[in-house]
């Protein structure tokens, strides 16, 4: 039986946990060869092992900090040593630090933008070179509902995710001539480590703002990611798709 991503090679950042991990599993299940990035090498190797065992496919690891352009370059040089083709890039790695504006430190702004925005740009820059050569490819960025709607206490995180929206829409136009599609997913509240430490009252308050009345799962985001990178979405580019259960702040 043919699978949706048979013969495709996908590079996924922030793949070791949460949404990235669910995306890696869903792509591998659909026949993709997955190339996994995060900072922690042990986590990545454990995931690669799990994926190989569960989906009987190839999985490789590229531990590096995507906020460091030199490290990203080295990861893609390593990728290039054995691969000439790259079909899918998922810019998923991201960090979230909450604070009211008066308590935002310069290093907090830098860290957030370096990972959430600059890292995505570095990866897209290098991945798109493979895709331009092939004249095909898909880049999927993970934004956030906070970047679309805004949220108190998340001005810096929200700004970094709004940047992802602008990046997605502009890059979609720039790369369309090469048949490279660029889209983003804008998740609402998704059950991952990112939400750890959220006080119970805040959690309940957030759920009361979700039309479907519950927090989403990483797999629910992964299923939309799978659709967007597959041929089923061949006429979709420059879009930001909300996966948020009807959340409103």
């Amino acid at each position: 039986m043919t699978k949706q991503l048979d013969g495709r090679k996908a590079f996924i950042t922030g793949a070791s946990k949460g949404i990235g991990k669910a995306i890696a599993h869903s792509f591998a299940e659909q026949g993709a060869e997955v190339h996994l990035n995060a900072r922690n090498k042990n986590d990545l190797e454990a995931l690669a092992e799990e994926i190989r065992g569960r989906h009987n496919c190839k999985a490789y690891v590229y531990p590096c900090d995507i906020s460091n352009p030199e490290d990203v370059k080295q990861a893609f040089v390593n990728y290039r040593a054995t691969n000439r083709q790259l079909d899918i890039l998922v810019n998923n790695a991201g960090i979230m630090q909450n604070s009211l504006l008066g308590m935002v430190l310069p290093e907090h702004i830098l860290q957030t933008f370096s990972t959430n925005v600059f890292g995505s740009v570095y990866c897209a820059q290098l991945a798109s070179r493979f895709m331009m050569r092939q004249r095909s490819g898909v880049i999927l960025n993970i934004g956030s509902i906070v970047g679309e709607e805004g949220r108190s206490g998340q001005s810096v995180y929200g700004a970094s995710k709004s940047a992802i929206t602008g990046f997605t829409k502009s890059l979609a136009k720039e790369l369309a001539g090469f048949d490279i599609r660029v889209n983003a997913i804008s998740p609402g509240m998704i059950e991952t480590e990112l939400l750890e430490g959220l006080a119970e009252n805040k959690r309940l308050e957030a759920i009361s703002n979700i039309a479907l009345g519950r927090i989403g799962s990483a797999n629910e985001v992964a299923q939309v990611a799978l659709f967007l990178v597959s041929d089923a979405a061949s006429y979709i580019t420059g879009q930001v798709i909300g996966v948020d259960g009807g959340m409103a702040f």
Partner: protein
Amino acid sequence: MTQNSRLYTVFAEALGVQIDQISDELKYNSIPSWDSTAHMVLIAALEDAYDVMLDTDDIIDMSSVVKAKEILAKYDVVV
């Protein structure tokens, strides 16, 4: 094929022009077919042909064929 003609072939194919239009003196943006989009196609073609991955600074600096030779030499490519 000499090294020079190999480089010229890569340039000609990437820019979609005849090989006799390529010379060391040819400069970025001096002909319609070497615009910014074609420049990215050219970079991809050079990387493929010479098995290198260029730095962003070098992509920006590659302002002529002769400059491309200089830059490729930094990556131990003999042109």
